[in-house]
């Protein structure tokens, strides 16, 4: 299975607000990167075709794609996934599959946040354990 991170190449207002909110909680965040993580069975050119064929996943005018080497969060990153399986959405070909929202937190000098600070961010703000699980 291949994990793919789709992020905005246009300014991400939500990531900015998340960073401001985390700083107010005393967490040493300089910058936040947000992406949507999709999981696919395909590889190589089939994978690229799969991603670019569905406009709800990917629009080249606003998105950029990162193919992740492993299907696990990167350093300083947490994946937030809903506890319940998602309801089918007929408007996208990838309606029912696994999906996560990734938050990647950077401290001073573009260093990714250590695990302890990341854990604080997750527990205090990024994850509601009643409906979500955090993978990091």
């Amino acid at each position: 299975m291949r994990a793919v991170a789709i992020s905005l190449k246009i300014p991400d207002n939500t990531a900015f607000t998340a960073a401001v909110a985390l700083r107010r909680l005393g967490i040493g965040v300089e910058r936040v990167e947000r992406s949507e993580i999709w999981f696919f069975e395909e590889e190589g050119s089939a994978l690229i075709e799969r991603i670019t064929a569905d406009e709800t996943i990917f629009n080249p005018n606003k998105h950029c794609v990162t193919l992740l080497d492993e299907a696990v969060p990167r350093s300083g990153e947490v994946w937030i996934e809903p506890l319940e399986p998602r309801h089918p959405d007929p408007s996208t070909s990838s309606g029912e599959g696994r999906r996560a929202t990734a938050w990647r937190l950077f401290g001073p000098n573009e260093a990714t946040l250590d695990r302890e600070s990341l854990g604080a961010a997750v527990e205090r703000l990024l994850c509601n354990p009643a409906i979500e699980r955090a993978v990091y």
Partner: protein
Amino acid sequence: MVNLRDEELQRIAQQLGRDPSVVELHAFDAAWSEHCSYKSSRRFLKNLPTSGSRVLLGPGEDAGILHLGTHDGERYAVVVAHESHNHPSQVVPFEGAATGIGGIVRDVLCMGAEVVAVADPLRFGRCDDLASHQSHIARAAVDGIGAYGNAIGVPNLAGDVYFEHGFDENCLVNVVALGVVNEKDVIHSYVPKGAEGWQIVLVGKATDPSGFGGASFSSLTLDARDAELNKGAVQVPDPFLKNVLMRASYRVFALLRERRIAAAFKDLGAGGIVGCSAEMTAHGGYGAQIELSRVNVAVEGIAPEVIAVGETQERMMWVAPLEFVPDLLRIYNEEFSLPEVAYNARAVVIGEVTAQQRYVLQYRERVVMDVESEFLTGTINDELPYTEKIYHGVSAQELPAVDIEGIFPRVLAHRDVCSREPLYRRYDSVVRGRTVLPRGAADAGVLAPVPGSRLGVALAVAGNPRYGRIDPAYAAEQAVLEAMRRVVAVGAHPIGLTDCLNFGNPRKAEQYGEFVAAIEALARAATELDLPFVSGNVSLYNEAATGRAIPPSAIVACIGSIADIANVITPGFKAAGSALLWVGSRELVGGGSVLAELLGHKGTLPHIEYDAERAALAIVRDGIARGVMRSCRVVADGGMLTAVARLAFDALLAGRKLGAEIDFGNPLCEAGGFVCEIGGDSGMDVTGTLQIGTTIDTPELVVNGTRFDVERLYETWSQPLAQLYP
């Protein structure tokens, strides 16, 4: 890359006596784009009637203003603006449509008004295949409109949608916004006399490279291969910031009132900082001096020409007297904490008004632009050739007799007729608690915009592409009539119009001819009905790379005033035994109708008779005045019987199981007019109307002897769009 043509470049060099700088080149590129300059439409647009006793402000500033009524001795006006965001919505539908709402809201806000409603006339490609590009655009654009309007808390009051192959490569996302203002508190888009030395304050989002080239982008034909190149024209919506900006601006308005200080306020739209500041100062007879390096930017190293004309969203400009500026900055930056709401958002002084009429830009203290203000902002014209369009009424065969039992359910399920609720229920139609008739409840939406007052305002839009395909001028004329009828059908008095003219390529004589003919038709209808156009917009080059243009689409909005919202006509049949009158034109012709399309029949277009139209309006208003008008709907897409069915559906939804018996030759004609439910012994003069039936106390429609169950018809009508908008 600039889109100025050689002769335009020569004109600039000649005027300046030198080659233009890079910044100047981009400034003129934006200022002289079709989008900003209306260079190929201005000479025709001036034929539209724009004045009248209700008009406080016609076209020319960010929005038009119409007198609404008086409450507690204060005179209130509605502010209205109408625009398109077609090209951006085709490229990035969610962001494009959302920024359409964002832009139109600023136009109304900048007149000093409280924004109270939006509307969204939409034209999408056919969405029969739910996974198609067209379906994606149709969904994403609607979600963008909803996401933006819902978050800023402005109810979506009106709108319409059509799905046509002619829009497969060019969707239309038109947007209308409505505001309310005490007439003595209107703020203008240009500085008043005595503004020398006033400061120019940029407010809002940090300027970024997004939206660079936007003005000329919206004036170019769309080519799929250029999508990637156009990414610079992708605009980023931020409704959160807008919500805060709106409320901060209301606070500024209040302080200006309190201190009795005048200032000018304008939206940054096409042409960015240059377009906005040049107009604000030049139209007051002044010049401006601006230092671009003072502009709050999102990333370091943005070129001065990008800062100067980039179209970053969520920005506005104040020009205010020196003594007010500290308060202005404090309200936005501290009280409403803009820098914490969006990255580097703030209010910042970037320049000042100068006495000599020159527009001067500096970047890091170096002059990068120095031109005569008038030359930059003055009118330019493009006298393009066009083919005169004369449409001859096609004398087609009359409609064949129809099998009403088989065809009526198909008409109700037709994509132009079926319920729009699956779409508009994604829009908040009731936020702010002032809604009288929410979106979709009736032919027009109605608000009580002034809390505590009985004043009401009605809003409706129209523009039928089935007519547009046959005859652009006729379609334009009908758009005025239908929008006006819709407002009348809820009990409002029509007071003004706005338009957005969505057409093809003006450099093709044939397509330009359609545009010219449509404006003439709009002018004719508005003049006949004595209704002014107070705001409008032109969107040309709606043409795919294949050369196929959209069905010519003059889209019209009508604003109605209501003296007492107690007299608004509520939806649906009220009682059994009422007379059903067809008021207005009832020609038995089918041209442009849904029925004709289903039958593959051409048909003749119904005649437009203004005497009959005025008489119909008088009858409807008389019925309301006498208190006998129990319900009313316009005859439009789907014909008279559809209007009757809608009145039965409205009653059903309100828990009243009523129906109607109808006796009329071909009840699916769309000739226009109204279906009115008239109660009791009305004593009305109903000359020229026809009683087509009676309401009955069972939920059935009995049409020339054929019985339909209202609940089953409702199922048929309400379901089709739920596929596209689950």
